[in-house]
């Protein structure tokens, strides 16, 4: 009986049509538009000016707060402008625009493929290197990794869990890196375990990736402290809280953080980036992006430098087909629909998904039939029908807080499942933000 999380979950079709596409290096671009908002928290402050020459891996922005990170140039060339540019939602965000000239890397970065297994650094040095290389969580949330690897004094880390589940349909970038670079991922895991001071590590992989499982299990033979755990295929198996529940059978208490269970979760892509940062001095300047969709003639997994316009990626991939209706940054369950295709990629972008009208157009909303399938699907044990009703009524934040709207992980299982076609998550999401704002202001007082 394979392990899985206990409450809720849905089974969307996994559509892993791009899993056979080996990782290709994306061709060189002419201009890179590097966003300052590459991570959760405050956008980084640029430290370059127009006309400066930069090399690959050079620091171009510094953290602007505790939850913030360094940003490095993904290309070598000249800084053309420093100013606002529209992101995928059309909102203006500070960017550094660099005209590409050649591909010169900073000294000290090891660009060879040799695998370096030895970890001669202390935990503090590891965390400093991870911070200096601008590593953020590549599972989508972009949380600065150096903050996660140094939990507060009163929280004790007991184990590391590497998230190789990739539960979102269509996405296969994690699948590919587990197949192609398993040893480096595990070394990254070992590095993070050393930084955290833990002796147990796990890699959670969903059962629909047999090649990745085999590849990681073979590599894990040399890492006795890390165990590969095969998990049932179920969405959202890759949710941090659900993964901890499945692997070590502990549930993060309501309103608390995962570290309270002793587990620290990192995406396998982050682990690979940590390996490259600590062992090769390579800052985070590229990521594997799955370019997929049933209407695309060819599926790809590209290794793309950050700052590449999405329109360019689609162009190289063969262009947007006539019947393309929606382009999503991420997967179909939690990804963000792109309004502005010229927006440039950021560190945590893992996929560009193209859907047709039939695959994505919402049906009409009809009356709730009180079937409670939304509540059965909710992995956090909430009642989305009630949260949606209270949200639409407006102003009922006390009741929403009592119904634990703050525990919502915005996975989309409720909207996905509702037979009446009610967009439950739309209103729940914005009321959750309101309630959390109220809760935070209470703590400040």
């Amino acid at each position, binding site marked *: 009986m394979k392990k899985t999380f206990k409450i809720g979950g849905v089974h969307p079709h996994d559509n892993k049509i791009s899993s056979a596409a080996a990782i290709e290096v994306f061709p060189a671009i002419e201009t890179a538009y590097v966003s300052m908002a590459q991570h959760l928290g405050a956008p980084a402050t640029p430290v370059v000016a127009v006309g400066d020459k930069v090399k690959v891996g050079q620091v171009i922005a510094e953290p602007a707060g505790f939850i913030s990170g360094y940003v490095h140039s993904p290309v070598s060339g000249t800084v053309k402008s420093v100013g606002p540019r529209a992101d995928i939602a059309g909102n203006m965000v500070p960017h550094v625009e660099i005209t590409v000239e050649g591909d010169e890397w900073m000294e000290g970065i090891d660009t060879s493929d040799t695998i370096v297994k030895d970890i001669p650094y202390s935990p503090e040095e590891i965390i400093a290197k991870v911070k200096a290389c601008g590593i953020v969580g590549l599972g989508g949330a972009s949380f600065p990794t150096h903050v996660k690897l140094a939990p507060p004094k009163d929280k004790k880390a007991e184990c590391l869990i590497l998230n190789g589940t990739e539960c979102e349909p269509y996405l296969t970038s994690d699948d590919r890196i587990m197949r192609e670079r398993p040893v480096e991922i595990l070394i990254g895991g070992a590095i993070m375990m050393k930084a955290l001071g833990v002796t147990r590590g796990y890699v959670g992989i969903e059962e629909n990736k047999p090649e990745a499982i085999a590849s990681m299990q073979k590599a894990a033979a040399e890492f006795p402290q890390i165990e590969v755990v095969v998990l049932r295929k179920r969405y959202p198996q890759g949710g941090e809280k659900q993964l901890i529940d499945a692997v070590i059978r502990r549930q993060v208490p309501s309103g608390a953080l995962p570290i309270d269970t002793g587990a620290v979760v990192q995406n396998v892509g982050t682990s690979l980036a940590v390996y490259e940062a600590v062992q090769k001095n390579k800052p985070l300047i590229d990521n594997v992006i799955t370019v997929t969709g049933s209407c695309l003639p060819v599926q790809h997994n590209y290794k793309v430098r950050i700052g590449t316009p999405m329109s360019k990626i689609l162009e190289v991939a063969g262009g947007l087909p006539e019947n393309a209706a929606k382009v999503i940054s991420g997967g179909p369950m939690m990804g963000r629909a792109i309004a502005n295709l010229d927006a440039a990629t950021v560190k945590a972008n893992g996929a560009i998904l193209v859907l047709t009208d039939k695959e994505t157009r919402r049906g009409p909303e009809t*009356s709730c039939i009180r079937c409670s399938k939304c509540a059965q699907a909710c992995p956090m044990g909430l009642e989305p029908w009630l949260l949606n009703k209270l949200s639409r009524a407006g102003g009922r934040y006390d009741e929403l807080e009592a119904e634990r709207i703050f525990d919502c992980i915005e996975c989309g299982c409720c909207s996905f499942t509702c037979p009446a076609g009610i967009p439950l998550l739309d209103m729940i999401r914005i009321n959750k933000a309101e309630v959390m704002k109220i809760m935070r202001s209470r703590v400040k007082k």
Partner: protein
Amino acid sequence: MNKLIVSPSPHTHGRESTQSLMRDVLIALAPAMLVAILASGWSVLMLLVVGVASCMLTEFLIQKYLLKRPVTISDLSAAVTGCLLALNLPPNSPWWLIVIGSIVAIGVAKMTFGGLGQNIFNPALVGRVFLLVSFPVLMTSWSDDGSLFGIVDAFSGATPLGAVKEGLKNGMTLSQIADDNLTFSQEFFFNAGGSAGELSAIALILGFIYLLCRRVIKATIPVTILCTVFVVSGIFWLADPERFTNPVFNLFTGGLLLGAIFMATDYVTSPMTTKGQIIFGIGIGLITVFVRYFGSYPEGVSFAILIMNCTVPLLNKYCKPRRFGEVKKNG
């Protein structure tokens, strides 16, 4: 190229819709409908057709002309009500009886509350109970023209439960009543003398399995109701076998199986959490047994379900689902 679509996530949807769920219920009822037609004749088919038609017509007319709102009969919920109502009536009922029942079921029990999703009481049961109270003679004399293909002879008389209630009132003991009536195996496979939907337990159970496999309902409510009826009636039967019918008899007679599988599990009028559903099921089971044993009506399922429907808002308010990361209160 057309403009890109932008919306909040999720960007895809599961396969179920209200219409697909209602369609599955109709498919699950098909074996019972078939058995009823085979056993009691074409009159049952007439009731089904008239029932479905009058329910859907009532809903259409009210939505389009009275409320002036979008017409939603394509979601098939009115069709399900029509079928359930037809299966709850005596096979020889006249067409106008089910038309009245449909108007009450849809017009009064469903639309006055606000339409699908807003009603407190199960519409088919409200229709049935209204007819029972308004036309007691028509609703309690069970007769049919005999089955198609001569499987069983024509039947006229009271249902087994009716015979039991009459007999006990007249001072007979159960063994005496039983001599006049059917054997147990006949009841399980084909039970003469019942409303069209009571006739075959096997057909209903097949429908139940279909609904479970298609994930339309969970087994909680039907299983809880049947277990409660079995256990409670078993206790009474053990105490006095001549006065209280045995638990197996209770499971297979009356509209219990039909009610437990198709009526009590109606989404709108049943609780939304497992805890609530268990309490709901126990309540229905208890009330059914008490009405059968101590009430003046021979059958209690309809009343039991309607009474427990009243408690559903309360059950929804106080029975919450199992939360993730439940913080256990220190004792």
